[in-house]
């Protein structure tokens, strides 16, 4: 049976918005719209109505607001509640999206972030009226510096990618201050796409460094490329294969010896908490992802937060303003940074995320954070052990917080990584990250995090093994998955070929 994309299944005489049982269909807001409905009440008019057309030229005023619906509060509540039931989420089950660290987001974080003294404070209110906020920021900077072994931390970048951008800007400023014109940045072939993109946004040429046959960087590879034209090497440790870069200290020494700096992508910091510190490995600049390591929610794609830690040599280049504690114990925002890269955010970064991360670090303490890394690593290795006999493991060695499999051994069945991912959905799992890192063909990148119990891991492993069996015995079933979702596979080619990026009425609204 085929439906046209703009109609919905109807039962004669029934509600077109009701699906089967408790799985609801739901149109777009605009299709629910009826003239005159509002979901809002305004306070009584206590000042005279000022007609805008008396002050502003008529041509500067708008007639109608296109693009907004007219719906009641219960329409809105049902609309979004129904939409929410179509999402996978950490609170529903294991979400092993590699490199994204989909750990549990404690509820207390949300409660704290909503305290009026945080949520309803203003970025430009006098510093004397924001002492609690500044104290929290200052303390959190200290926590992150201690966890990472860096000398200073800025909380301004709004996301990991903006943290990378800030970090590379500081690297550029560092070299410029020394009168050096370095033009290249080394990025391993297994790096996140944001690394080369952040380097390019700074005007750098990106040079790819090949990983060795064991999946990690080797000093010789860096040595061969490292010269006085290279501003920095960007590394992720553990790398995106989940493997610890065991030569990191030696590699950092090579880079430093030729005047370069080492950037650490902190996406995988969760594996290292309390065990080893990037600052002790030779890293000069790194970013943190508060939404990965420090349990702030992923929010359907953001907001995250991407603080940056640096060694003292880069302190003159920190983004402005910085938070400082004065001699009298009071806190202040200061622009006193001699060679700052400038400002990165309209205000002070994603403060609401800093509150949650602070709450998390205080809740876990030093022992809890270390245990979190240990459990994350144990869980990933356990899954690898359960799966390694039946799935191809491109780099078969102990891993840290995540493991990477591939679809190589399924080639004869015609089942690919994408199919395995879609079939996992039928069993109630969000798939792992797929086709990344690029160094592995058909990669399945699995990060269980420390949040999962043994039973949860066993169920997931058993499911993946069952899918592997299905791939051999009933490949068509896997190739056409998912079968139990509201939507079967969506046509992404069609979406890109003729982009429809907003709703438009089929016919003029009456």
């Amino acid at each position: 049976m085929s439906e046209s994309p703009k109609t919905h299944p109807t039962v004669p005489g029934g509600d077109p918005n009701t699906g089967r049982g408790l799985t609801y269909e739901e149109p777009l807001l605009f299709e629910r719209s009826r003239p005159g409905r509002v979901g809002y009440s305004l306070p009584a008019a206590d000042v005279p109505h000022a007609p805008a057309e008396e002050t502003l030229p008529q041509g500067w005023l708008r007639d109608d607001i296109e693009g907004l619906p007219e719906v009641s509060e219960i329409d809105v509540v049902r609309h979004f509640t129904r939409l929410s039931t179509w999402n996978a989420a950490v609170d529903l089950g294991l979400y092993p999206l590699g490199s994204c660290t989909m750990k549990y987001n404690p509820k207390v974080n949300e409660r704290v972030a909503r305290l009026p003294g945080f949520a309803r404070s203003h970025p430009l209110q006098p510093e004397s009226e924001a002492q609690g906020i500044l104290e929290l920021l200052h303390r959190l900077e200290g926590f992150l510096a201690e966890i990472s072994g860096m000398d200073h931390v800025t909380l301004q970048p709004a996301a990991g990618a903006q943290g990378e951008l800030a970090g590379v800007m500081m690297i550029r400023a560092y070299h410029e201050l020394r009168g050096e014109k370095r033009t290249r940045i080394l990025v391993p072939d297994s790096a996140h796409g944001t690394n080369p993109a952040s380097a390019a946004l700074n005007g750098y040429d990106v040079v790819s460094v090949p990983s060795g046959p064991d999946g990690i960087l080797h000093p010789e590879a860096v040595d061969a490329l490292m010269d006085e034209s290279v501003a920095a090497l960007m590394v992720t440790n553990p790398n995106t294969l989940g493997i610890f870069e065991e030569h990191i200290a030696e590699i950092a020494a090579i880079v430093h010896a030729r005047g370069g700096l080492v950037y650490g992508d902190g996406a995988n910091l969760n594996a290292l908490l309390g065990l080893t510190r990037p600052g002790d490995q030779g890293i000069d600049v790194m970013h943190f992802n508060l939404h990965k390591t420090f349990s702030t929610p992923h929010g359907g794609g953001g907001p995250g937060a991407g603080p940056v830690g640096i060694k003292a040599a880069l302190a003159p280049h920190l983004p402005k303003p910085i938070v400082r504690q004065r001699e009298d114990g009071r806190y202040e925002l200061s622009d006193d940074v001699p060679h700052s890269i400038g400002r990165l955010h309209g205000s002070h970064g994603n403060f609401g995320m800093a509150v949650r991360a602070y709450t998390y670090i205080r809740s876990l303490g030093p022992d809890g954070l270390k245990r979190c890394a240990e459990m994350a690593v144990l869980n990933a290795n356990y899954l690898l052990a359960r799966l390694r006999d039946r799935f191809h493991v491109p780099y078969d060695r102990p891993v840290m917080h995540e493991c990477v499999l591939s679809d190589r051994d399924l080639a004869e069945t015609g089942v690919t990584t994408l199919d395995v991912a879609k079939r996992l959905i039928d069993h109630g799992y969000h798939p792992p990250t797929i086709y990344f890192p690029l160094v592995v063909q058909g990669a399945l990148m699995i990060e269980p995090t420390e949040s999962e119990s043994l039973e949860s891991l066993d169920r997931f492993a058993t499911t993946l093994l069952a899918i592997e069996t299905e791939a051999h015995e009933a490949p068509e079933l896997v190739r056409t998955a998912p079968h139990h979702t509201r939507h079967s596979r969506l046509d992404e080619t069609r979406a890109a070929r003729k982009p429809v990026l907003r709703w438009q009425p089929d016919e003029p609204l009456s």
Partner: protein
Amino acid sequence: MLEAIGASDVDTLFRCIPEKLRLDRALKLPRAASEQEVLAELEVLAANNAHSDSFDWFLGAGTYSHFVPSAVDALISRAEFYTAYTPYQPEISQGTLQAIFEWQTMISGLTGLEVANASMYDGASATAEAALMAMRVTRRTGVVVAAGLHPHYRQVLDTYLAGLGAEVRTLPRTETGASADPAELIGDDTACVIIQQPSFLGTVEDLACLAEATHARGALFIVAVTEALSLALLRAPGDLGADLVCGEAQSFGVPPAFGGPHLGFLAARMKHVRQLPGRLVGETVDTRGKRGFVLTLSTREQHIRRERATSNICTNQGLCLMMATVYLALLGRRGLRELAELNFSRAEYAKRKLTAAGLELALPGPTFNEFAVKLREPSEAALSRARDAGLIAGLDLAPYAPDLGPALLVCATELTGADAIDRLCDALAPQASR
């Protein structure tokens, strides 16, 4: 578990970390606290800040205190929204995807442009991304920026452009508060002219006129908006010649939260869509012909294109976008207009009261809900008197517009009633000195 792995103890798992790199001590952090203790600690920190519940709040300047209907937080608190991630797997992310598609439609309508992305970090970075996009579209490197652009946006723009050899020129403000004619500043190498509407000092610009001057030299016209509610009253920038509209949608149900997380937006014309940074959601069908939504045109993005991507942006501000989409649905086309008119009326009332009390408006140009007023004394004295009366009276403009003399930027909203405005007036222009 260890047996399955073949390890004797947990430490075995960390043999890959060279001995000399291992931390041989506990992290120097405060010991773990119970939930009760953590809450108590954070409540003390929170209590040590002024906020818009504890004062009558006239401070805007890019971050606005508006009333947020209860349904917003109730809906975005659904864990299916806030504990999900980027909708990479569309079959199990239709909730997020459909909401983003609705958001794109709303921003497209409000800005008068054909396509809006799934949001940016904040208004400042959205403005910087808009400038970078204009440079890619025009293959030019010069940028002309109105003095009326929020000073923090300008600083972020300068930061983003620093490594790219772009020349940034400032378009001065005239005596009315409006921007000067940009014609003389626009050269053959100018990629774009950036105008904030209303300006940082609150005045409404003549966009059509500025757009014409910009287009005459082949540059793109960018309109930045910090008070998104103004879009409900003022003509859509896209209808007045804007090629890109960027800005901050925090006003739409997102808490001020000391400045973040907020919600940047960026809208463009369809012909430029392939140069647009950030996530985009598009409509499609599944194999059974059922309508659904997916992330699309991702060949623009860093995870595909790497160093040749349009931007390095990876996340959007998903949950803030959700707040704004719920908020705009609740208010709808009528409610948002009425709210904008109330904000406008309150600001006009405040202007009348303050001038009647003997104060002078700093700029004569028309405004929306925010305006600059001159003081008869150093601003610290007035702000302090207002504070004692329970008011955060506005932004001291001394660091931002010293040419105006002692002056405040005052914002009136639906939260600042006539009574609060009257008290503001008494605090800033006390009877005794009249």
